[in-house]
Each structure stands twice: as structure tokens, then as C-alpha cells.
């Protein structure tokens, strides 16, 4: 296996955006039958590298080789011809097209020049079956939750029957169950001889799945070696260049049990008739399969979607907030999962993004103090490790750094209840650690933190209690002592066994 010739190679490639070098002299070789991990901190250049491997970007220097032959000016269609398929980090889907039309996009089967819907249906169904997508193929993708869309994106890559499959953080919005489906699938594809490049910030997945690792740091390869004999701590060491601490801070029981938020008979969106207490000083986890109504729970409490409750108490107020400004006034803050669509103003400078909650609260016509704004933004950036010029547009940040901005903007307002929707999605391991420490500190300081997450380990290690949501209800409330990945998954799928087995 190790002797087979590489299918896709980057040789000494470099790339700069507007004069800022992002990749310097990077080489990587993808071999058939091998899962190759690409690791690096946020902004290290991983997505940029795969964009060049797949023809979406052209390297400034160096060459891309397919089957050992250098290809100049490869375009995405040519990459597809060459059997290269990519699961993009920022999804490439179109909300108004159906699942099947999205899966076939750019590679439709034709008959007489027309899209052959019969062929498309059968091939798309095949791809969907591989990833466990059961929704009707005609469903518009816009109606799917983020996690399901991620599965469509994966199915889209599989549909192209790739020889080289590149996955850019495919599991970042997937729950444990779905991740399991994916890892099994990748294992099978590998055994069938597919070359796989796998990017993830979830190191346990990398450990379980990959045979080889390339580590990028600040745009350069710092190591390129087999994974055998390396443990997770070793991986982190490769990435950050020093000994890592524990990923999760030591858990301490919370000092208080006063309820910050208490709702009875709460309904919003998919959530039906839920009773829930959120206590000060705790990190309350929200788990479950993707798309069971967890997000509606947060949004309903936040006043962002219509919600009602038989009785409600929110930080002393005897009613649910009527809207977001009211929720903010009551000390609630919300960090959305889809940072691109809901969390950030991508075309605006980072500093403006950081200041937006302040702008929303200040008297409308009070003159702004740009000096103070800059100072505050810089301290936030330092606190969360957002590097570089804050005057750049947020879209120039890597995914993980964008997530940090979405979180950081609430910090100056010291929210009493922090509603977090998958806050570590796509965040590198060091930053995750910082965020975890921060969340525990917030809890320690008497804030209530609600952590909705698809990353089961963080629910287990970080939370005081975890509410597992299934079909719009809290199916189980697990206390810290009873927390384990198995327990959460079991509660999440209890009623769903047949479906998952399919």
C-alpha cells in the first residue's frame, strides 16, 4: 500500500492573498487507500491548500500533479474529470434546488443535452444511502438543518465517485451518530482504494481514522509523517509546537443552584411543551441528534422566533423576552452556529463585528468614540487570540477565527445567560481549550452557560448537566455524574433505533 504512486500531489506550492503569504512552499502527496490528515490551527492555510488541489484556486508558485503529471491551470471541472471531489468547509449548496439537483450540480448526467433526471435520481439516491440521508430527493436543501446539509455536501462528493476525496471539516456540525456513519464510510472507501484527505479539529476522529498526517503552521509544513505511534497529545504538540495541557479544564461543582431561567410548558418551533431550568453557575449542555429542535429552544428563549410558555421566568422577569433587544436587556446573549449567515457581517471589518451588540444598545444618535471602540476591540482580540488587523473584513478570517469573533462580541456585555449554538464548530484545538476555560470561568462567576453542541466529548467533560433533546422534547436530563458519550448517544437515539440502523 505504501508503495503505490500518489494520485494527487502538491509540490512546493505557495499562495498569497493581496500580498499576504498564506502558504509557503507546501508539498503534500495523497496515496490511494490512505486517509491522510491535514492538521493546523485556524488560519494555517488548510482550506486554501485544498482549494488549490481541487482547481478552485491557482497556486502562485509550485505545481499540482495528478497521477504524477503536472497540470497547469486546473479548473474545478477538470479536477472532477480527474476524479477529485471536495467536501467544502463552507458548503457549496444552493438552497432553492432539491437535494438531488444539488448533489448532481456541475456533473449532471445528460440525455439529449438535458439533465437526465432518472439517472440523477438513481445515482443521487445511491450517494444519499451511503451517508444515511433519507429525506425525499426533491426536498429543497434550504429546508434542511445545517447538519443535514453537511450530509448532502458529503453525498455530493460521493456522487462523483471520486478517486481522491477531500473533506474539509466534514464533521464540524455533525453529531456523534452521524460522525459514526461517516467514519465507517470513509473506512470502506479507503479499503476500496480511494485516496482521502481529511481535515478536522476533532483529534479523536483523526486518531481513529487516519494513517498519515501533514501539519501546517502559518502556511508552512511543519511535519509530514505516518500517524502510527503518535497519540492525541503528540498531534497537538505537532500543531502548536509545545506540550499541550488538558483539553478540558477540571470540572468543579457549581456553587449555586438558583435558576436564572425557568420555563414550564415552553413551545417554540419544533420544541413542544418543555420544562427547563437553567441555573446560575452551571454549564447546561444541550445534546441530541442534529435537528431535533435544540436550536429552536435557544432561539425561542432568546426571543428570536415566536415562543410561548405556560409560565416563564427569565432573570427575574416573569415572561419570555418579546424580542432580541428585550432578551439582551434581560442579560441573554446568543451565539449562532451558522456564523456565515447568522453570526457575522462578513463584508464588514472585524472591529465593527465586535462592536455591533454595543451599537445595538447605545442611544441611537450618541456620537461614537472610535478610540474606545478600538481599545475594546483590541482587548477582545487579544483575549481570544484573534490575530491581525482588525480593520480587515471578517470574510478574510479563517473559519475558526470567525467563530471567535462571533463569540467575542458578547463578552463586553457580560451576559448573565449565554446561549451558545455549537460554539466550537471548526475551532482548532488550542482555541477550543481557551473557549472551554472561558466558559467554565463564566459559570464560576455565576453566569449561566447553555452549550448546545454536536461535539459529544465537550458535553461530557464540560457540562454540569446535559439535556438530550429528541423530537422536540427533552428526552433525558443527565447529571454530571451520569455523563458519558454512550449515555448521551443512547438517550438521543432511543426512539430512533430502526432509522439509524438503516
Amino acid at each position, binding site marked *: 500500500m505504501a508503495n503505490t504512486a500518489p494520485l494527487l500531489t502538491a509540490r512546493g506550492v505557495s499562495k498569497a492573498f493581496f500580498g499576504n503569504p498564506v502558504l509557503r512552499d507546501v508539498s503534500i502527496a495523497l496515496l490511494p487507500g490512505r486517509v491522510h490528515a491535514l492538521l493546523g490551527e485556524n488560519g494555517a492555510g488548510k482550506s486554501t491548500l485544498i482549494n488549490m488541489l481541487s482547481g478552485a484556486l491557482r497556486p502562485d508558485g509550485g505545481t499540482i500533479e495528478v497521477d504524477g503529471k503536472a497540470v497547469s491551470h486546473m479548473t*474545478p471541472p477538470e479536477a472532477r474529470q480527474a476524479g477529485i471531489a471536495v467536501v467544502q468547509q463552507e458548503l457549496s449548496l444552493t438552497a432553492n*434546488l432539491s437535494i438531488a439537483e444539488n448533489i448532481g*450540480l456541475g456533473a449532471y448526467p445528460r440525455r439529449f443535452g438535458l439533465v437526465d433526471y432518472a439517472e440523477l435520481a438513481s445515482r443521487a439516491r445511491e450517494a444519499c*444511502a451511503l451517508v444515511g440521508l433519507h429525506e425525499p*430527493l426533491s426536498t*429543497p436543501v434550504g429546508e434542511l438543518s445545517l447538519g443535514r446539509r453537511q450530509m448532502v455536501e458529503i453525498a455530493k462528493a460521493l456522487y462523483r465517485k471520486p478517486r481522491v476525496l477531500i473533506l474539509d471539516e466534514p464533521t464540524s456540525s455533525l453529531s456523534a451518530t452521524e460522525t459514526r456513519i461517516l467514519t465507517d464510510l470513509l473506512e470502506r472507501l479507503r479499503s476500496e482504494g480511494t485516496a482521502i484527505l481529511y481535515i478536522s479539529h476533532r483529534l479523536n476522529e483523526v486518531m481513529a481514522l487516519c494513517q498519515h498526517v501533514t501539519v501546517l503552521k502559518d502556511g508552512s509544513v511543519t511535519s509530514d509523517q505516518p500517524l502510527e505511534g503518535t497519540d492525541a497529545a503528540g498531534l497537538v504538540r505537532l500543531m502548536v509546537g509545545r506540550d499541550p495541557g488538558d483539553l478540558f479544564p477540571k470540572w468543579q461543582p457549581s456553587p449555586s443552584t438558583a435558576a436564572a431561567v425557568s420555563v414550564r410548558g415552553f413551545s417554540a418551533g419544533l420544541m413542544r411543551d418543555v420544562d427547563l431550568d437553567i441555573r446560575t453557575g452551571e454549564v447546561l449542555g444541550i445534546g441530541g441528534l442534529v435537528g431535533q429542535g435544540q436550536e429552536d429552544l435557544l432561539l425561542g428563549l432568546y426571543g428570536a422566533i415566536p415562543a410561548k410558555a405556560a409560565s416563564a421566568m427569565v432573570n427575574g422577569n416573569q415572561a419570555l423576552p418579546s424580542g432580541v433587544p428585550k432578551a439582551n436587556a434581560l442579560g441573554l446573549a446568543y451565539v449562532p452556529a451558522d456564523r456565515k449567515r447568522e453570526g457575522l457581517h462578513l463584508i464588514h471589518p472585524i472591529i465593527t463585528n465586535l462592536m455591533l451588540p454595543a451599537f445595538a444598545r447605545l442611544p441611537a444618535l450618541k456620537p461614537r468614540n472610535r478610540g474606545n471602540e478600538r481599545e475594546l476591540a483590541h482587548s477582545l482580540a487579544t483575549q481570544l487570540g484573534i490575530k491581525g488587523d482588525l480593520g480587515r473584513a471578517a470574510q478574510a478570517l479563517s473559519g475558526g477565527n470567525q467563530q471567535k469573533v462571533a463569540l467575542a462580541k458578547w463578552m463586553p456585555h457580560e451576559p448573565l445567560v449565554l446561549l451558545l449554538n455549537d460554539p466550537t464548530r471548526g475551532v482548532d484545538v488550542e482555541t477550543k481549550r481557551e473557549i472551554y476555560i472561558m466558559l467554565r470561568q463564566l459559570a464560576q462567576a455565576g453566569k449561566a452557560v447553555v452549550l448546545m453542541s454536536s461535539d459529544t466529548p465537550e458535553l461530557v467533560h464540560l457540562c454540569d448537566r446535559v439535556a438530550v433533546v429528541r423530537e422536540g422534547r427533552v428526552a433525558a436530563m443527565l447529571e454530571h455524574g451520569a455523563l458519558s458519550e454512550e449515555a448521551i448517544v443512547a438517550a438521543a437515539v432511543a426512539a430512533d433505533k430502526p432509522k439509524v440502523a438503516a
Partner: protein
Amino acid sequence: MSVVPSNSGQRTGRLYWSVQAGRNVGVRGLFLVVLAFIVAYGFLFPGLFTMAGFAKFTQSWFPLALVAMAQALLMLTGGISLAIGATVSLGAVIAATTMVGPLGVAGGSALVAATGLGIGAITGFIVVKLRLPAIVVTLAGSFIIGGAALLILPRPGGAMPEWLSDLLAGNTPAAFLLLVVVVLLWKLYLATPLGLSLYAAGENPVGAYRSGVPVDAARIAAYALSGLLSTGAGLFVAAQTGSGDPVIGAAFTLNSIAAAVLGGIGFLGGQGTMRGALAGSLLLSLMISVMFFLGFTPVAQYVAQGLIIIGAVALPQFRKVQR
């Protein structure tokens, strides 16, 4: 889950038609409003259901339907055109100055079509390749195209072959049949990879490009087709009126946008369906006749028109919020 092998035609039917059915969801309310107007119209003017009555009504609707499609096509790709009206005028004057001349109907039609495709392709090239905002490019374009129409016919005039006028705008539903053909052609186009790419190119161009969609080509093609539809509408107007008028199309610019947006086409690209745009144009057209038969005074016409347009857009929104 396994792939159930089954009859290929049936499978086509299933996916294609259920995708199609899914696209009705957003425009059902509009379809109901349109239906109500048709019923009201038929009730007020039973002659609508005679051959001639139907023919005449569809003739008034036809050019608006074409320009609504022309506009919707662009808006689906995230574009827009303020030059539709001028392009209609240009199509009309070209038709009215060539068809009775040596070029004849075939030559004239070819010239009209080539002009539309050409103007559209150039506009598309400027917008897509030079990355200029479509709204101003086409605003400038409207002056250039309108100027060209004035050069060809400085004042209303020209002529169309009598038989062509009678064929297209006589007492037969030729216009309606033509519309059916255009819609079928559109469905065919939308079933080509390039056509289906419109949605992706409009909504998520980066993702579409990375998926191997020829985004630029899809957008430029949309502009070209949009130009073709516009000059085609001009040709029809010339036939309908038996002559050319260099400013006849002016009102079509805003009306095409109104029809498209009424039909649920979004401005950000990739949102909405052509059937919605067509229904929107039909509503605008029906409204004129229905208000006449209800005996509205001009003041009432303006007020009612505003209310109907807002109502047709706001009602579905309300229903969405209620849910």
C-alpha cells in the same frame, strides 16, 4: 437503504415532478389570487371565454409575460436589468423597419433575435466579466439602446406585414400558443445543465464554481436570453400595433420588475420560480381589465393597484408568520 431498480421513465417522473411540485409551495397564494381575478374577470365579461375574447386578452398579457420572464431570468442569477423597456422598443422598431423591406419576415425576425442576443450578451459580459453593478450598467444601457431605437425610427412609424399582425394578434389564440411554446422552451432550458446552473450561480456562486458549474457562462447566457425575450416582446408589440414606436417599451422596465417580484423572485439570486413571475405578470395584466369592468375611476385605479400589489406580496408573508 438500497437503490430500487425500476422503470426509468417512472423514476424520471417521480423526481422531476416532485421537484416541480415543490416549487409551487411559495407561489400558491399568488396562484389563488390570480385565479380569483380570472373568475372575477370572466364573471364581469363572459366574452372572455370566447375564442376572440381569450385571444385579445392573452395578446395584452403576452409582451408583459415575456419581459417578466426576461427580468426573472436575470434576477435568478442575481442580476437585474433597467434596459428591458428600451430593448423592447428597439426590437419593435427593427421589426417595423425591416419586415416589409427586402429582408422580409424571416430576415427581420433573425435580425431582431440577433440584436436581442447580442445586446444581452454584451451587457452580460460587462456585468459579469468587468464586475460592474448590473443596475447602473443596464441604466446606462437603456440610454444607449433607447438612443439606437431613436436613430432607427426618430418618430413612430414603419410597418408590419398585415398577415403577420393578423396571425399574431388577430382573433386566434396564437399569442397564447406562442407563450406555451416559450414556457416549454424555458422548461427545456431549465432542464439543461446550463439552465439549472442559473439557481446555483445566482445564490451561491463561489460554491457553484467550486462544484464545476460554469458560473460566468450561465450568467452571461441568462443576459443573452433575457435580451432575446425582450426584443421578441418588441417584435410582438410591433405586430400587435402594426407599426414601430421608438418609446413604446418604456413602461416595461418597472412592470417587469414588479411582475417578477410579485411572483416571488428574490433580488439576491436563486430565489423564486418562473411560474411565479408569469403569474405575477398575469396578475398585473388582469388587474387592468378587472378594474375597468368594475368601473373604477382613475383615482380608485391607482389606489387599488397599489393595494393589490402590496397585498399579493404581503399575504403569503403573513401566512408564513402565522405558522
